[in-house]
C-alpha cells in the first residue's frame, strides 16, 4: 500500500454485556484498507461483521485496540462515513427525493441546493422519475437504490455497507452489483462491504477478508484479481468464491468435506493469499 492507508484497525477487541454474561464479539482484529479500495468482509451470520462497521462508523467504541481513519480516530458518527443498512432504513414520512436530501439538510444546504443534488444522485441510480413517491410505494430493490443514493449524495470518504443486498431477489441484486461497481468506477470511494455470501464478496471485493464465528478474527485475506465490472456468474468470481468458501469452512473449524476445492486458476481468475 502506498501512503497512509485510509483505514487502519489495530488489535481491536469488542465485548458486549448481555444477560448471559459478557460476549466477546471481536478479538484482536487488525486490518488496513487503502484509499479507493473495495474490501468485503465475509463471515457466518452473527459473527460480528456488523459490529466492525459500527465501530468504524463511530456508533460504538472498542474495548481494546485502535481505529484510525486518515490517521485519526473516527470520533462521533458523521456523514464522512455513511452506513447503508440491510433494510435501507429510509424515512417513510418523506418522499424519495427528501430522503436522499436528508443528510444535505442536516449539513445546512439550502432547499434548492439539496433538491438539485439529490435529484442528480437519483438520476444516477435511475430513480429520478420516482422522486415524488413515498418509500412504501417502491419495491425492495428500488428502496435499496434510494438508500444508495442517500449515502452517495453525502460524498462519503468511506462507504460502509451492511449486507445491503441480502434481502433482494437474485436479479435485482445482480443489477445493483453492476450499478455499485459503475458508481465506484466514477467516484472511487473507499467501500467496506459486509456480507455472508462468498459469491457476492468475490464479485465486489478488490480484497476479501474472511472472518471466523464469534469471537470474530480475520482468518484469511484474499486479493481478487479479475476485470471489472464483474458479475456473480463470472467464472473468475465463482472460482474465487470457492477459495473463500474453503477459508470460511476452515475458519468455522469444519473439514471442507465432500467438496473438492480447486485453487482458482481458471480463465484469468487469480486469488492470492497475503
Amino acid at each position, binding site marked *: 500500500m502506498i501512503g497512509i492507508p485510509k483505514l487502519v484497525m489495530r488489535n481491536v477487541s469488542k465485548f458486549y454485556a448481555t444477560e448471559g454474561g459478557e460476549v466477546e464479539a471481536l478479538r484482536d482484529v487488525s486490518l488496513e484498507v487503502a484509499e479507493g479500495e473495495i474490501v468485503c468482509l465475509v463471515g457466518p451470520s452473527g459473527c460480528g461483521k456488523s459490529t466492525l462497521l459500527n465501530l468504524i*462508523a463511530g*456508533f460504538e467504541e472498542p474495548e481494546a485496540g485502535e481505529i484510525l481513519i486518515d490517521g485519526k480516530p473516527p470520533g462521533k*458518527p*458523521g*456523514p464522512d*462515513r*455513511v*452506513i447503508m*443498512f440491510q*433494510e435501507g*432504513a*429510509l*424515512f*417513510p*414520512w*418523506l418522499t424519495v427525493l427528501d430522503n436522499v436530501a*436528508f*443528510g444535505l*439538510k*442536516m*449539513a445546512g444546504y439550502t432547499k434548492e441546493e439539496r433538491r438539485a443534488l439529490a435529484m442528480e444522485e437519483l438520476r444516477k441510480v435511475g430513480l429520478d422519475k420516482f422522486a415524488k413517491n*413515498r*418509500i*412504501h*410505494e417502491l419495491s425492495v430493490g428500488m428502496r435499496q437504490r434510494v438508500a444508495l443514493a*442517500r449515502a452517495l449524495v*453525502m460524498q462519503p470518504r468511506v462507504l460502509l455497507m451492511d449486507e445491503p443486498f441480502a434481502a433482494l431477489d437474485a436479479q435485482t441484486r445482480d443489477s445493483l452489483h453492476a450499478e455499485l461497481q459503475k458508481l465506484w468506477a466514477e467516484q472511487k470511494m473507499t467501500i467496506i462491504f459486509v456480507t455472508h455470501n462468498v459469491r457476492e464478496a468475490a464479485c465486489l471485493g478488490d480484497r476479501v477478508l474472511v472472518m471466523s464465528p464469534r469471537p470474530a478474527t480475520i482468518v484469511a485475506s484474499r486479493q481478487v484479481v479479475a476485470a471489472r465490472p464483474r458479475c456473480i456468474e463470472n467464472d473468475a468470481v465463482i472460482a474465487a468464491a470457492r477459495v473463500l468458501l474453503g477459508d470460511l469452512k476452515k475458519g468455522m473449524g469444519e473439514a471442507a468435506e465432500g467438496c473438492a476445492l480447486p485453487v482458482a486458476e481458471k480463465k484469468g481468475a487469480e486469488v492470492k493469499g497475503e
Partner: protein
Amino acid sequence: MTDGPSATTVSVSMTRQKKKLSRWNKWGKVLAVIVAFYGLWLVGWEALARSGLWPSYVFPPFTPVLQAVVDNTVDGRFPLAIAASMKRLLIGYLAALGIGMSLGLIMGRVQTAQITLGSMSLGLQALPSIAWLPLALIWFGLDESAIVFVIIMGVVFSIAMSTSTGIRSIPPQLERAARNMGAKGDSMVFDLVLPASLPHIVTGMKQGWSFAWRALIAAEMVYSSVGLGHMLMMGRELNDLAMVLAVMVVIVLVGLAADQLVFERLERAVHARWGVARR
C-alpha cells in the same frame, strides 16, 4: 376464429358490469339495513311514547325532541352553546396537546422520565377527569379556567403516553441512519423523532379529543352558565325532557362530526402517508 376477440371483449365488459352492479347492490343493502334500523327505532319510540303508558314529561315521543333540536337551532341557542363549548374545548385541547407532547417527548427520550413521569401519567390517567373539578374550583374559582383545567387534565396524559409510545417504537436503525447523516439535538427531534412517531401521536390525538369532549360536558354540567352541558342541566331544571334529549342528540352529532370529519381523516391521511397499516 374471426369473431373470437370481440366475443371475449363482450364477455369481459359484461363481467365488469356485473361487478359494478353487485357492488352497488352491496352498498344499497347496507344503506337499506341502516335506514330500516333507525326507522324502526324511531317509529317504535314514537309509538311507545304515544301509547299512554307513561306521561310525556317522563317519556316524550321523538317528534317534540326533533322539534326542540330545530327550535333551539333556529333561535340560536344551540349555535351559541356549541360555540361556547367549542371555545373551551379548543383552548383546553390545544394546551393539553402542547403540554402532553412535550411530556411525552421527555418520557420517550429519557429513561428516568419514563419511570417517573410515565408511571405518574398511567396513574393519573385512571382518574376520571371530572374528579379534578372540585380542586379546580378551589384553585381557580368559579371561572372558565376551571373547566379548561379539567379538560387539560383529561387529555394531557393520553397525549403524553401515546407520544412516548410512538417515540419508543421508532426502529433503532432509523435513528442510527439519521445520526449517521448528521442529525443531532433539535434536528434529531424535529426531523426524525416527531415525524417518525406521528402515526402514534395522531391516534393519541383522536383518543384525546374524545376524552376532552367527555370532560367538557361533565364539567359544564356541574358548573357553568353557558354551553351544551349547561343546557342539559337547564332542561332537567325545567323538567323539559324533550329539551334534555335534544341536547343529548346534539352532543352526539357534534362529537361524531369532529371525530369523523377531522380526526378519522387526519389519522387515515397520516397512516397512508407513512405507509403503516391501520390497527
